[in-house]
């Protein structure tokens, strides 16, 4: 393995891509779609009272990742077996290039193209930044995580292209793997959630459930025939009525199954740099899908705790947050686990691809041609 070898393969790949495929058209469509989404979200969210940057940032990143997951697998999913079919792989294998040169060269080339796709989204992220409400650091961090996630997607595609003889099957397998990561994790989480949900006794600090029974006067109408002296003010519990008591209720122990969520690339990217929750003065949450994903995953990780539930939401000093998920931003992040898992998978996929490209070949899978 050498940098020279990797460079030779990467340059060859890039040259072919740029000339052969309708790459300019794809990039153009990509740019147009992101532009459209950004403009629409700006239009929908724009409000002089609110920093709409957070919403725009969330929507753009969400879309870039979604589209990336669709486009990027196609960069590598047929890379090796396609070359085999065209009879050009063996041409490289009989030179001084090693299998690692070929694998990494193809990976670098695909990653560079994925990077080019990301780069076209940059102007819109800059726009979101100018709108305010999102820091440059967050944008850079999520771009870095996006780049890493897309590299992993490239590596997985490359691995499948070495595992099957026909490009069609490896493309299907790659998209299937993406489907498992994106939808499978969520479905798996949803289906196992009922397994960890049970009836439990929890401690609550708030107005006891039987408070209303114990204070019947508050709801009892005046006895018939008597004229009320003055209108009876309906009796309301006050903060002084809050006590700690036990309650039987269903509890979902998502802390046992939360680990499925960060395997999802969307959760990783969303949780790496979520936009700040809106301040209380704003009273307006905006449309921020990535922050919701992040908050949901963090809440799931926290799951059910032994802490006393605070339900004493009475009185003047209580003000409801405009965003019920605002607290989640303070919780422990989940993305390092997910990113770690994805990177390990990516490295594993690359190693498998490298192994499958090793020549001379001892065992040849059915239907594979060498040259």
């Amino acid at each position, binding site marked *: 393995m050498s940098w*020279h*070898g990797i460079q*030779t*393969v990467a*340059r*060859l790949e890039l*040259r*072919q891509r740029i*000339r*052969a495929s309708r790459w300019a058209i794809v990039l153009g469509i990509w740019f147009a779609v992101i532009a459209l989404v950004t403009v629409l979200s700006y239009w929908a969210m724009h409000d002089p009272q609110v920093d709409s940057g957070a919403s725009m940032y969330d929507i753009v990143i969400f879309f870039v990742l979604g589209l990336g997951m669709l486009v990027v697998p196609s960069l590598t999913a047929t890379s090796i077996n396609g070359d085999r079919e*065209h*009879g*050009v792989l*063996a*041409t*490289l*294998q*009989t*030179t*001084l*290039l*090693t299998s690692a040169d070929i694998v990494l060269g193809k990976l670098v080339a695909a990653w560079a193209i994925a990077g080019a796709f990301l780069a076209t989204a940059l102007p819109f992220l800059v726009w979101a930044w100018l709108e305010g409400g999102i820091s440059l650091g967050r944008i850079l961090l999520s771009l870095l995580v996006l780049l890493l996630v897309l590299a992993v997607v490239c590596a997985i595609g490359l691995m499948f292209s070495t595992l099957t003889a026909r490009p069609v099957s490896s493309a299907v397998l790659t998209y299937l793997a993406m489907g498992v990561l994106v939808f499978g994790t969520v479905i798996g989480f949803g289906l196992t959630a009922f397994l960890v949900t049970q009836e439990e006794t929890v401690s609550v600090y708030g107005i006891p459930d039987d408070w209303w029974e114990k204070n019947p006067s508050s709801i009892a109408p005046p006895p018939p025939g008597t004229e009320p002296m003055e209108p009876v003010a309906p009796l309301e519990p006050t903060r002084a009525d809050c006590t700690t008591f036990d309650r039987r209720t269903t509890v979902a122990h998502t802390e046992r199954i939360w680990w499925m969520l960060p395997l999802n690339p969307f959760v990783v990217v969303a949780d790496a740099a979520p936009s700040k929750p809106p301040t209380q003065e704003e009273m307006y949450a905006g449309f921020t899908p990535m922050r919701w994903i992040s908050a949901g995953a963090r809440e799931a990780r926290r799951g059910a705790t032994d802490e006393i539930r605070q339900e004493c939401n009475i009185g003047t000093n209580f003000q409801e947050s405009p965003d019920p998920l605002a607290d989640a931003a303070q919780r422990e992040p989940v993305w390092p686990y997910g990113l770690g898992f994805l990177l390990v998978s990516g490295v594993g996929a690359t190693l498998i691809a490298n192994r499958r490209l090793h*020549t*001379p*070949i*001892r065992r*040849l899978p*059915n239907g594979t041609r*060498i*040259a």
Partner: protein
Amino acid sequence: MLTQGEPRGIEVAGVRRAFGNVLAVDDISLTARPGEVTALIGPNGSGKTTLLLMLASLLVPDRGTIRIDGHDPVTQPTLVRARIGWMPDGFGTWDALTVREVLETIAAAYRIPPDQARARVSELLQTVHLADLADRRARVLSRGQKQRLGLARALINDPGVLLLDEPASGLDPRSRIELRDVLRSLAAEGKTVLVSSHILTELQEVADRAVIVARGRTIETQQLDGDLVGAALASWRIDSLDPERLQGWLTERSVPARRVGGGLTEVEAAGEENAARLLADLVRDGIRVTAFTPSQGALESAYLAATEDRQ
């Protein structure tokens, strides 16, 4: 470049390779010497391409040993790859690249410095007569032109051992003659050239020896020199104005003969000496012979004899 005393050429001993339950190469042994063109001939599916894949360090033999200039392609693939030029059967190219770029990419893969590579590529494009197509996309090349590009690709690292799989297929007559000259001059430079082909007449003119394989086995190794042509049992075709008399004459003297199409008669004679005598006798006895030609080359005869049991 090569140190003194280093073994050169190709040595294959008892090589076997199966794909699943299909035995592609059963037991092939051969020697190809430097300075010679060795022909590998055999029917379709006799294991020629598989053997060349093993020689090209792409496939591990199940059994047996291979030495390329003394190196084992299984344990020392890099040393072997630096020494070989392999031209596959059905050479694929990167369609989007120009002819020159294809060769320059291969040169880079052999770590030839760019300026040296440029000179080498121009030189090779002249050799294979593709200089005028150098800046066209490889996609537009015809099959024969692609074959010539494949030959240039195999020569780019100035290999000491050439492995050519059906290099003449798809070539026009002029290109074939040129290929022959290229192969001869490579052998004259002291390189080891192993060519697999079906075009026997072609090979007979270029090859120094022929290895005949069938059903994955080496059937025989034939030295292709004057002695073979002079002594081998060969068929001769006779055209005569007196076909009936000719037939009777041959039967009388129990010369092995048979009628072939177009009123021609085919006889077998061991060596040119006997053939000449037969012709002299026919003319002496007043049989009007209008044509007397060898129907097969010596290599063809040897090939047909060796692969007779194909059915």
